[in-house]
């Protein structure tokens, strides 16, 4: 029974991780950069949701789209004002300055954490639940209504994202840009707009994850650091830039941590993912679902 409990809990945690990691994987897949401010997109979503719902008295179900909007806005602004100089004027990704993206996104992360700390305050702020059932029995399992809703919304969002990427015109354009930015550009695709959409989608996913978890994780200004670190691990395990890889890796990590914490040692819970990461890098450096690439 405990094993089943741990498995279900691991899957739920894995779904939370996946919501965060997929956005990060998209950005890497399309733009080949790591967004170090991704955790702060999550934090902005959590705060927008909580402040709108508690401060303005807006029903939580309406505060959720507001958080998504805030995520889209921060994603758009980051790409438009901070990322675009990275590739404007360059004909090839080979000429891109990777360190620029690292420095800029890392700086943005620090700026946002400290800005929220000073403006909103350091106190953790628990968001209202979408389903106010703090203790729910579902057969042999116990969980809060919020956790259940979060898991359901996470599944819906990831399926929608997969359909969007596969079926929509914008999604196909994004795929083309991911394969060859210059080629896509020659074929008439607006690569800047594709990058913008990717950043907005990434912001939306992270912000919704933050909003959904606001009643569970009690957001504070540095709340995004922890899930962001997990996301980096997941993205590498799944295969840099692979969306299905990130989802599978997130679920795997959630379950691994859940079991490891009880059957091995709770003290090393966060190291299990890192051990897996090292193994993957040794045995399959491109990640579970990544493809070997060669640059010419």
């Amino acid at each position, binding site marked *: 029974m405990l094993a089943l409990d741990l498995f279900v809990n691991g899957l739920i945690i894995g779904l939370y991780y996946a919501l965060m990691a997929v956005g990060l994987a998209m950005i890497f897949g399309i733009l080949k950069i790591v967004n170090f401010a991704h955790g702060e997109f999550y934090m902005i979503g959590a705060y927008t949701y909580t402040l709108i719902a508690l401060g303005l008295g807006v029903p939580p179900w309406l505060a959720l789209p507001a958080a998504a909007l805030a995520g889209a806005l921060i994603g758009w602004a980051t790409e438009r004002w901070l990322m675009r100089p990275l590739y404007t004027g360059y004909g090839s990704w080979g000429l891109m300055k990777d360190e620029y993206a690292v420095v800029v996104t890392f700086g943005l992360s620090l700026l946002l954490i400290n800005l929220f700390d000073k403006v909103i305050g*350091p106190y953790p702020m628990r968001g209202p639940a979408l389903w106010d059932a703090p203790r729910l029995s579902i057969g042999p399992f*116990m969980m809060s209504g919020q956790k259940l809703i979060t898991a359901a919304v996470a599944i819906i969002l990831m399926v929608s994202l997969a359909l969007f990427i596969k079926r929509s015109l914008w999604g196909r354009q994004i795929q083309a840009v991911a394969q060859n930015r210059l080629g896509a550009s020659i074929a008439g695709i607006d690569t800047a707009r594709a990058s913008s959409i990717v950043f907005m989608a990434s912001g939306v996913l992270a912000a919704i994850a933050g909003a959904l978890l606001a009643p*569970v994780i009690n957001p504070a200004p540095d709340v995004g*650091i922890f899930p962001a670190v997990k996301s980096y691990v997941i993205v590498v395990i799944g295969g840099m830039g692979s969306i299905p890889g990130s989802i599978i890796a997130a679920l795997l990590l959630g379950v691994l941590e*859940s079991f490891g914490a009880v059957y091995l040692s*709770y003290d090393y819970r966060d190291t299990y993912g890192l051990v897996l990461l090292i193994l993957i890098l040794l045995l399959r450096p491109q990640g579970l679902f990544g493809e070997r690439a060669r640059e010419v």
Partner: protein
Amino acid sequence: MRQNRFAMAVTAAAFLSLAQPAQAADPVVIGVSIAQSPPGSVVQGTQVKDGIEIITKMINDEGGVLGRPLKIVYEDNQGIPEKGRAAVEKLISRDKVVAITGGHQSSVCLAEIEVAHRYKVPYVNTNCWSDDIRAKGYPEVFNPGNYNTRVSTAMAETIGAMKVKNVVAFAENTDYGIGQAKILGELLAKQSPDVKYKYVALDRAGKDFTPAVLPLRANPPDMVVNVMLPPAAYILMNQLYEQGVAPSAKTWFYDGAGIADYPDFWQNVKEAGKYMLAFGLYHPQMPMPDIGQQVGQTYQKEKGHEPNRLIFQGADSVLQIVRAIEQAKSTDASAITQALKDMDYEGVRGKFKFSQEPGYSFQQWVDIPYVTYQLTEVDQPLSKTTLIQATGQPLHADKLVRPSN
């Protein structure tokens, strides 16, 4: 020539006489190192700072110290030991502070006291609970705040009186958390050998403690003890409640981290905080000197809610340094250190003298007053909670109430 010399002497005397009052008005500077930004506990840092601001204003309104204004220079240590070390180094060498205070995270204090000890500058530890800070035996370090052995002793007595048999503690993986959990285990082994006790170390940055909580569902203990600080403590409490582990009809929830009087406590825990048993260093029913009451009232007026222990501890730390300067009639570091060591101090929270006994009680306010109380309603103000043990009084376990499920 003689006239010229006379004119120069008069000019110099005039300069000196003009310069003298300015020098007399130079402020006495105390350095405060606290967490003002993440990842440190900014919540604690803010409260310590609020208390310091209140007492500084009160002191300056009454003419300052030795006729000079009191000035506080703050440094943000971000709750990181290396930053704390650098902050104290800067306060001493650049800002020329006469003493350091404000510390509220044990790992940071442990780093900071090394610098204070090297420069022989007095260091008044506001709220670092780890016994290791005292055990170092540094003559410059004074501890008017709480310490792990004090909490663990109080908790072990309470656990013994409640006749529980099986206790699980969740402790944060810090000097403070692990230290307190270990001492509690040692004391229980001595005082109540029948009690089965174990502790689980949790990451203070963690967001999901469900895997640590799930094994307790099948085999619930009689009591779960919290040795974690917010926000991790709030998350743990919510997950214990969500899984039906504690507080419940079978399992008590006992807080040993003093979180119940944090201003954001109820907003973050709601139902999970009801029936919690708490160790407290402040309760409105505790006797308090006039100056302490004044600090509390000023805080309540300014912030609109009840004060908590950290307000008083912050205020007390600065007041104690000021009293030592007054007693020493000097701002010389060694004179202040000697005065702190010798003086009978009556401060914001009461009257005491530092113990000189080596170990965890070295330069410590050993009999620091505490209470034990229970929260019986959601959103309950501290003043309405049930006092189970008043300061220095026996414990009334019969006043405790349990949830029905």
